[in-house]
């Protein structure tokens, strides 16, 4: 048990002596240097261990043999130890990162670095204000000097700006300290109390706190910091962004008890404003390090806001929030800055070079996900709890700003990530072999992020292994990625089966079972189509399993958090799957943005929801929860984003189209159903506790309009997958509308259609995947006549489109029949009319799909094309078999759905033998099927008998106005097939919603660009900002 004061002693002694030691050779001095850093870290880790696991009491160290306030004392408690562990670790690893630099540069840099780390330790531990000032100055001066470790014009001028700002702040700090002494007669924090600052005393406190706050880089008084982030060496910047910020942030945290409420509110607000604006300004930024600078500043703002606004929260929650944000920022930011040092590319587009190095790419991804607050990383939990606290204390503006700011941040971070993964890197210089120290440091931090995440999940929330299964699965498959794809595919299939076997007994109700079938069985069949993949196919199965398991976890989640966790896992994994598509940069980014916006809404909605009393699955217990109106609205919108409802559907066509061919079927057939599931849950809670505003009436309208808009848009697509995507949107629109009725028949029909949609859309997407696999094009007009080459795929598409369109005798008609009956029974007549229209329009795109691809003229280059591989055909025909069975015996599905809905409502249909009878009409699917077969047979036989001598001819044997066709391309009608319809619809066919969102994007970028013009680059202007900021805050706080 070594006193932590030895950190100071050893560092100082080493610092003083290093220049002498260095005369004996750099190796020795480096050994001493790293030895001391390692010793510090080890010491602090030891202490942390004592505090956390042995519950050691807080340690107070007096100096000079006197106790405070006479002498300066140091304090090391759990919180200090927590901060110091991370700062020292960062210090050590940053030093490892800088190894090569330290090897080459003068010994001065070693000394400066060592004393910098020492000063942070002193700053965190000391309880004396003036001593803080001294350590702050040590920190500042060593940082100033270290900024010049790489001496460029920019780093010098940035360093000078930094010094100007820092010196002004330190003048204020000094004034504050002295005046505090003047008013309280004390310099030790333990002996200063908030009530000593009455009247003019507040000015003293203001100066003190303001100086610290300025060092935390509030918007707009932070231009200097950005310049430093941009120009200074990555290793040093990581120290500035992480260690300095952490230490100063901790000082601020220490000063909180002294501050009156007016101070706190203003500082908190300033923090939120900083977070919001810096992220907004980051939108336009192309320079990677400056971008990280914006993000860092934003995170410090968020940290301040979380420190201030969680004061009323229970302490464990408070520590989770602050600690979560702190660790998240620290780990991710340091890691990203280090990566920037390894990559050595200024423009974010240049980061595409990371593709050549798999490990670095994975690290990059981990940091980006961590920084954006995705599970399992600490930021996720912090954000979740923070939102809860904000809502409990009814700080809605703060909530709005935090969530919007986070979204902005997410946009630029994921733009960066997607560009990195998708941009063409061949033009760029390759990464010169990064030195192992840098990579090691960065990897350790990624690992650290994961360990912290695991720690939080284990010790704070006490999750079971199932909740972590999605992430674990991704990790395990990543480790097994060297295996061939097929093997991994079969293993995945087995894993899904095992998972299904595991959760089957956990699915207590039929409703869960129903979605379980869609999610697990549907996925399992879909996996077959992925078995066609060749080579190693890195990453794919990990993400796939992650997604499937998180689907399943949605069903058995028993708390809001578990549900939301699985939801976010689902988002991550589906995003990564979409990102694998060849040109999926924009698509995956859009998907991420909308999903996250939806997730934020869900987070808000769940936070508004009352606590759960039951421990059964959320899907069941939600029935007894009375959701407040705001919660219902927000949750509904959040889920509707996932279900691709109109207005927020922008992501949907892009994601479907650009994802890899066999991934699209998962997205359409299964992922969209997760949105449906969520909406259903909200609806369930609204049965008994109807909200005061007819939310679901309007959701119903949104649903039908989605159905119509989707159908229209699908008709005007040239890209087969986009067409199917819009079709999915349209079909899910039906489901949403039917759900929104909240009647027995409505739900039966919604679930019936959802199930059918899963089958026929899977089949369609896989069929198109097979076609794409052979033709390498998604443009329908580039295909044609494939019926002769790919008859099996054609058959799938044929049966599926008959099912989609709702033409009897196939099962799609059942859905249509149920839905219209339900609508008319409910009294939603106009909605039913719109749905009729949508369903008529659906013939347009369905015919276009089958005609343009399979009928018409076969192209020359496709003359010798083969049928799709068996791996594609098998799942198609499994789904087709399902469709045919359900068509023949629709009651197989309707009966269980009836019983599911009967749990919530009185039954409105009766089943007499094979006939389903509603209040309005009846339908005997089995009989219809028989009659259809009979009436098909009659003309068929007639034609066979009377056809005469029938000659099978080829594609150009057509009557072509007594001429002959020139080429298949000019003869095949497929391009812009519904031009007349578009013309008839006029402005209604224009993509207004897309234009709206484009406008929103453009405006936020323009605004961000406008605001960032405050950073003129002139050091004096920055000082002016600081002074004006101080004055402004002074006025706002109303200090007298």
């Amino acid at each position, binding site marked *: 048990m070594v006193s932590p004061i030895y950190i100071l002693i050893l560092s100082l002694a080493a610092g003083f002596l290093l220049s002498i030691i260095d005369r004996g050779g750099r190796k020795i001095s480096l050994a001493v240097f790293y030895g001391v850093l390692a010793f510090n870290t080890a010491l602090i880790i030891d202490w942390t261990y004592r505090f956390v696991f042995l519950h050691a009491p807080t340690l107070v160290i007096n100096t000079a043999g006197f106790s405070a306030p006479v002498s300066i004392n140091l304090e090391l408690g759990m919180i200090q130890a927590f901060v110091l562990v991370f700062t020292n670790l960062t210090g050590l690893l940053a030093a490892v990162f800088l190894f090569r630099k330290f090897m080459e540069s003068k010994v001065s840099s070693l000394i400066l670095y060592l004393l910098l780390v020492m000063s942070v330790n002193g700053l965190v531990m000391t309880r004396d204000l003036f001593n803080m000032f001294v350590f702050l100055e040590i920190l500042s001066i060593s940082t100033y000097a270290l900024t010049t470790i790489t001496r460029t014009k920019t780093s010098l001028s940035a360093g000078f700006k930094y010094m100007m700002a820092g010196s002004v702040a330190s003048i204020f700090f000094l004034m504050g300290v002295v005046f505090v002494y003047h008013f309280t007669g004390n310099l030790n924090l333990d002996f200063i109390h908030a009530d000593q600052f009455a009247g003019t005393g507040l000015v003293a406190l203001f100066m003190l706190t303001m100086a610290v706050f300025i060092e935390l880089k509030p918007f707009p008084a932070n231009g200097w910091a950005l310049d430093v982030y941009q120009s200074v060496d990555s290793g040093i910047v990581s120290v500035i962004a992480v260690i300095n910020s952490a230490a100063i942030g901790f000082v601020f945290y220490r000063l909180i008890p002294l501050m009156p409420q007016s101070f706190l509110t203003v500082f908190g607000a300033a923090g939120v404003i900083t977070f919001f604006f810096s992220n907004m300004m980051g939108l336009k930024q192309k320079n990677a390090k400056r971008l990280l600078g914006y993000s860092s500043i934003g995170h410090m703002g968020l940290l301040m806001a979380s420190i201030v606004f969680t004061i009323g929260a229970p302490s464990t929650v408070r520590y989770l929030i602050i600690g979560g944000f702190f660790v998240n920022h620290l780990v991710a930011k340091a890691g990203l800055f280090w990566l920037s040092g390894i990559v050595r590319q200024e423009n974010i587009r240049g980061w595409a070079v990371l593709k050549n190095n798999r490990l670095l790419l994975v690290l990059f991804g981990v940091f980006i996900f961590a920084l954006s607050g995705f599970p399992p990383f600490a930021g996720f939990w912090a954000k979740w709890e923070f939102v809860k606290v904000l809502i409990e204390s009814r700080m809605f503006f703060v909530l709005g700003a935090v969530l919007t700011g986070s979204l902005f941040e997410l946009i630029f971070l994921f733009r960066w990530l997607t560009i990195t993964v998708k941009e063409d890197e061949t033009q760029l210089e390759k990464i010169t072999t990064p030195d192992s120290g840098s990579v090691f440091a960065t990897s350790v931090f990624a690992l650290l992020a994961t360990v912290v995440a695991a720690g939080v999940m284990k010790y704070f929330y006490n999750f079971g292994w199932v909740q972590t299964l999605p992430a674990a699965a991704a990790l395990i498959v990543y480790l097994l990625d060297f295996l061939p794809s097929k093997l991994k595919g079969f293993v995945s299939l087995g894993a899904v089966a095992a998972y299904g076997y595991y959760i089957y007994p956990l699915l207590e109700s039929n409703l869960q079972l129903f979605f379980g079938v869609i999610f697990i069985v549907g996925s399992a069949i879909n996996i077959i189509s992925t078995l066609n993949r060749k080579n190693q196919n890195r990453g794919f199965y990990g993400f796939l399993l992650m997604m499937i398991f998180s689907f399943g976890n949605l069903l058995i989640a028993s708390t809001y958090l578990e549900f939301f966790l699985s939801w976010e896992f689902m988002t991550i994994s589906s995003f990564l799957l979409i990102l694998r598509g060849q040109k999926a940069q924009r698509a995956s980014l859009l998907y991420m943005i909308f999903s996250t916006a939806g997730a934020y809404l869900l987070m808000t909605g769940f936070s508004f929801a009352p606590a759960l009393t039951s421990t059964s699955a959320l899907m069941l217990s939600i029935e007894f929860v009375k959701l407040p109106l705001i919660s219902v609205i927000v949750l509904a919108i959040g889920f509707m984003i996932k279900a691709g409802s109109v207005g927020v559907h922008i992501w949907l066509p892009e994601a479907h189209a650009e994802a890899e061919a066999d991934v699209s079927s998962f997205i359409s057939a299964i992922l969209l159903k997760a949105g449906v599931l969520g909406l259903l849950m909200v609806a369930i809670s609204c049965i008994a506790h109807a909200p005061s505003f007819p939310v679901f009436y309007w959701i119903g309208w949104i649903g039908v309009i989605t159905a119509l808009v989707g159908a229209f848009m699908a008709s005007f697509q040239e890209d087969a997958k986009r067409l199917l995507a819009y079709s999915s949107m349209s079909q899910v629109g039906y489901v949403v509308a039917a759900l929104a009725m909240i009647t027995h028949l409505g739900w039966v029909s919604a679930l019936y259609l959802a199930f059918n949609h899963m089958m026929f859309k899977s089949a369609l997407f896989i069929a198109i995947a097979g076609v794409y696999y052979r033709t390498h094009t998604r443009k329908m007009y580039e295909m044609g006549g494939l019926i002769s080459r790919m008859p099996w795929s054609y058959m799938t598409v044929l049966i599926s489109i008959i099912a989609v369109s709702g033409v009897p005798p196939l099962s799609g008609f059942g859905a249509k029949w149920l839905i219209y009956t339900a609508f008319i029974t409910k009294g939603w007549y106009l909605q039913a009319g719109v749905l009729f229209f949508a369903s008529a329009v659906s013939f347009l795109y369905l015919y276009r799909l089958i005609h343009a691809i399979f009928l018409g003229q076969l192209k*020359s280059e496709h*003359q010798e094309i083969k049928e799709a591989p068996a791996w594609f055909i098998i799942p198609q025909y499994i789904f087709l078999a399902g469709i045919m069975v359900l068509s023949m015996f629709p009651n197989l599905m309707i009966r269980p759905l009836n019983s599911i809905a009967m749990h919530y409502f009185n039954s409105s249909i009766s089943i007499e033998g094979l006939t389903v009878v509603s209040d309005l009409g009846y339908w005997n699917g089995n009989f219809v099927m028989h009659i259809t077969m009979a009436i098909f047979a009659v003309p068929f036989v007639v034609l066979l008998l009377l056809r*005469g*001598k029938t*000659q*099978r*001819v*080829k*594609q*150009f*044997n057509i*009557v072509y106005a*007594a*001429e*002959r*066709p020139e080429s*298949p391309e000019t003869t095949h009608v497929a391009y812009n097939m519904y031009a007349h319809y578009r013309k008839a619809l006029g402005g209604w066919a224009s993509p207004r919603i897309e234009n709206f969102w484009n406008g929103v994007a453009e405006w936020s970028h323009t605004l961000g660009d406008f605001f960032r013009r405050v950073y003129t680059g002139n050091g004096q202007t920055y000082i002016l900002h600081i002074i004006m900021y101080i004055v402004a805050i002074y006025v706002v706080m109303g200090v007298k």
Partner: protein
Amino acid sequence: MNRKHIDEIEKQMKLANEGLPEEERKFFADVIPTRVDPFNKYWEQFLNWARSRSLWMLAFGTGCGATELRPLMTSRFDMARFGIFPRPTPRQASVFVVGGYASIKTIKRIIRSYEQMQGPKYVIALGSCTINGGMYYDSYNTINRLDYYIPVDVYIAGCMPRPEALIAGFNRLKEKIVAGECEGMNEYTDKFDWFKKNQKEIIKDWNMPDYNW
């Protein structure tokens, strides 16, 4: 028979389609048309009766004689009362009215349209030009006798024949059909090589299959 023989026979049974470039042959059927015999007598008589009362005309104005076809549709002459209707596509038509002189450019289209009609099919040749070249008898660019190229059932002389003559011609055709004398379709297949030889002699740019199915 060895494999080589079979191949050779199969090759002979296919159209050579030598006028087409190699890469285009796959777009066209290369089956040789064969003779299709009538049904047994009474049934065929019944059908011929119906056929004669439902003459679907290919409305393809091949020459200037087509001018006189138009009045036939009007209220004054009203061909519909004879069961004659224009059809917009050769696939569905049974009567081909060749409207006068046929230039070499047109005869190519005439042949193609004729071959695309489904049998039994009939041809009415209109005007002197189709019989002996008429006023264009010495033109370098017109044919003189249509039945060198496709089988003709009824010629209507005149330059040009009036609609009344056309009606008379159609009536003559009806009689021939009822009598079972209109087997131009089988004549064409029977004398396929002869017809093709004649056709190819005058059509130099033969860029279509040997039989337009």
